[in-house]
């Protein structure tokens, strides 16, 4: 049960208890009042009648008929039933008692009706054995008491409900910051570090709120810094690779091609009977293979084919190359044309993602096949890249994420895309990456351009 409900229930219990005590008290009071009223009426009437009897004394005693008239006059007196009794006339008075009172629930009557010996007085009228019997009849009084009690009970109940609602509302308000806090923590867990809490005005809670906001601030700042760093380092890496590719092209590559030209030249010039021509030919061969190595290094560092022929050509040539180096592992490449045009920095990102994923397949997956699929998304004209292998898979929760996975994630983030990694031990690994159509990164582009002109 939530804290709010618990507290509310507690308060309501206390309220109910005190209301019950109040009700019992009320009823007890009413009861005493009824019984007091009854006995005082009885006493008063009895006294009056006795006075009458005394006044008659000495005179001719009033006849029964006279008394009957007298009593008849008092017929409507409240709370009392008067009757005559004596030899010869058994005038049965209506018996009052804790029976039913019209319009009053039985339980109330039972509780309120005076108990014990019947409230009754007998007033002898001389010596004839005649007497007036005065009986208390609480029915009226009970009905009246019921009316009042009911009102009081209803008021009490109304008050109780009001108080309950009030208590609930107040508690709810007081605990709202707690609900907000737990909500915020949940969002935090889901990776939304931008949630902040507003002040509630309650000092104790505000302290917690402040700590939370501070923590959130620190966390999101360090998250931002991390993202920035990761992206920055990727950009730097890309620049560095470009730079290296240029150096290789301009330095090593050219020198090797010069060496080869020289070797060929020496071989042609030399006396064919000496060992010079074969040695020169060897130098030319070695130069050739060095040159090829430099070229493949250049392609790895910065696939010029990517800039010249686009992503699909670059990927298919890279994958072809990859297949020729891995005998027991085949990578298939499917693409559904037409594919959206990507800005150069996005194209290199996609290329690197595939490169990194394939490196991981070789290093970790023990797979026998891997497929790379590239297609346009129908809904938004973006790009969808899937990379799936049939290897060992892994548990994303427990592995140590290296630069590979982080790099993939950051590159996707840099393009404003999203990616899901479906990997479980034993079921292979699948990346599903979505890159939206627009993903301009003006600052990074400038960096690369500056680098480009500097490299020339």
């Amino acid at each position: 049960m939530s804290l709010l409900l618990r507290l509310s229930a507690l308060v309501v219990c206390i309220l109910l208890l005190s209301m019950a005590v109040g009700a019992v008290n009320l009823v007890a009071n009413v009861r005493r009042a009824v019984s007091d009223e009854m006995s005082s009426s009885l006493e008063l009437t009895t006294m009056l009648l006795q006075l009458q009897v005394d006044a008659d004394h000495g005179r001719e005693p009033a006849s029964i008929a006279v008394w009957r008239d007298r009593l008849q006059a008092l017929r409507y007196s409240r709370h009392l039933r008067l009757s005559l009794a004596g030899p010869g006339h058994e005038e049965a008075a209506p018996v009052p008692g804790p029976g039913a009172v019209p319009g009053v629930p039985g339980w109330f009557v039972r509780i309120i009706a005076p108990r014990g010996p019947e409230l009754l007085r007998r007033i002898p009228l001389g010596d004839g054995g005649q007497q007036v019997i005065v009986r208390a009849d609480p029915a009226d009084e009970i009905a009246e008491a019921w009316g009042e009690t009911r009102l009081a009970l209803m008021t009490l109940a109304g008050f109780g409900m009001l108080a309950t609602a009030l208590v609930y509302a107040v508690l709810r308000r007081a605990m709202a910051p707690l609900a907000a806090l737990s909500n915020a923590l949940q969002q935090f867990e889901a990776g939304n570090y931008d949630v902040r809490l507003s002040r509630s005005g309650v000092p104790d809670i505000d302290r917690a709120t402040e700590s939370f906001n501070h923590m959130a601030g620190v966390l999101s700042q360090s998250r931002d810094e991390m993202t920035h760093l990761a992206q920055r380092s990727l950009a730097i890496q890309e620049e560095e690779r470009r730079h290296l590719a240029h150096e290789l092209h301009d330095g090593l590559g050219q020198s090797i091609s010069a060496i080869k030209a020289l070797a060929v030249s020496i071989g042609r010039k030399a006396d064919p009977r000496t060992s010079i021509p074969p040695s020169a030919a060897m130098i030319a061969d070695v130069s050739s293979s060095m040159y090829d190595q430099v070229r493949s290094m250049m392609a790895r560092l910065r696939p010029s084919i990517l800039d010249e022929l686009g992503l699909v050509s670059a990927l298919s040539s890279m994958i072809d190359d990859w297949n020729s180096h891995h005998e027991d592992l085949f990578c298939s490449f499917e693409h559904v044309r037409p594919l959206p045009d990507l800005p150069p920095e996005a194209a290199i990102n996609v290329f690197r993602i595939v490169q990194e994923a394939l490196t991981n397949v070789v290093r970790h997956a023990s797979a026998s096949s891997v497929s790379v699929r590239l297609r346009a998304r129908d809904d938004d004209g973006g790009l969808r890249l899937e990379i799936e292998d049939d290897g060992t898979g892994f548990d994303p929760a427990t592995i140590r994420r290296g630069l590979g996975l982080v790099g993939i994630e950051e590159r996707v983030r840099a393009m404003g895309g999203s990616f899901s990694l479906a990997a479980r031990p034993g079921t292979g690994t699948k990346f599903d990456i979505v890159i939206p159509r627009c993903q301009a990164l003006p600052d990074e582009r400038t960096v690369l351009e500056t680098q480009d002109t500097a490299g020339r």
Partner: protein
Amino acid sequence: MNAPSSKLKILLVDDHAVVRAGYRTLLDDVPGLEIVGEADNGDLAVKMFIDTAPDVAIMDLSLPGIGGLEAIRRIVQRKHDARILAFSMHEDTVFVEQALQAGARGYITKSSAPNVLVEAVRQIAAGGMYLDPDVAQRLAFQKTRGASSPIAGLSTREFEIFCLLAEGETVSDIARRLSLSGKTVANYATQIKSKLDVSSVAEIARLAIRHGFVKV
């Protein structure tokens, strides 16, 4: 020994002195060739071409300044019959196409240059064209495949294997020829079939004949 006037005059353009030195050494020994000038940037190349009127200019494409392609364009603008051999580290067909469009009469890569340079220079000087065999093949593939046929979706390697399969070579033949493992070639064959939506090698052959990649 040819008379000096009948020697082929050559202009060597490359921004790397070591490369120029290497090729100068190579070409100096060839009878009938004479290097009449060297340039290390595009602007100078244009100027030297006008000044020295070489029979053939050997032109690197990546040059500082206006760059090799632009230099070719400017030279050809002034001298319509200029004979220029583009000479580059780039092996991508785009560069070849661009160089030819700019007006070059030939294209060789620096990896094959020492062996084919002289031959290329001679052919171009004689009014012909010269393309590096490797590059020429790839360029041809790219052109003939077109954009619309299902074959356009094949990678270079897949297309190669497609043609070989169509010619009736076995998987192990192809593997040996392309120095790939048999398994890799078999995988490629499967992938090619699925991309072209065919189920047998016979169908591959039919497709290749229909598109004119293999002669009957």
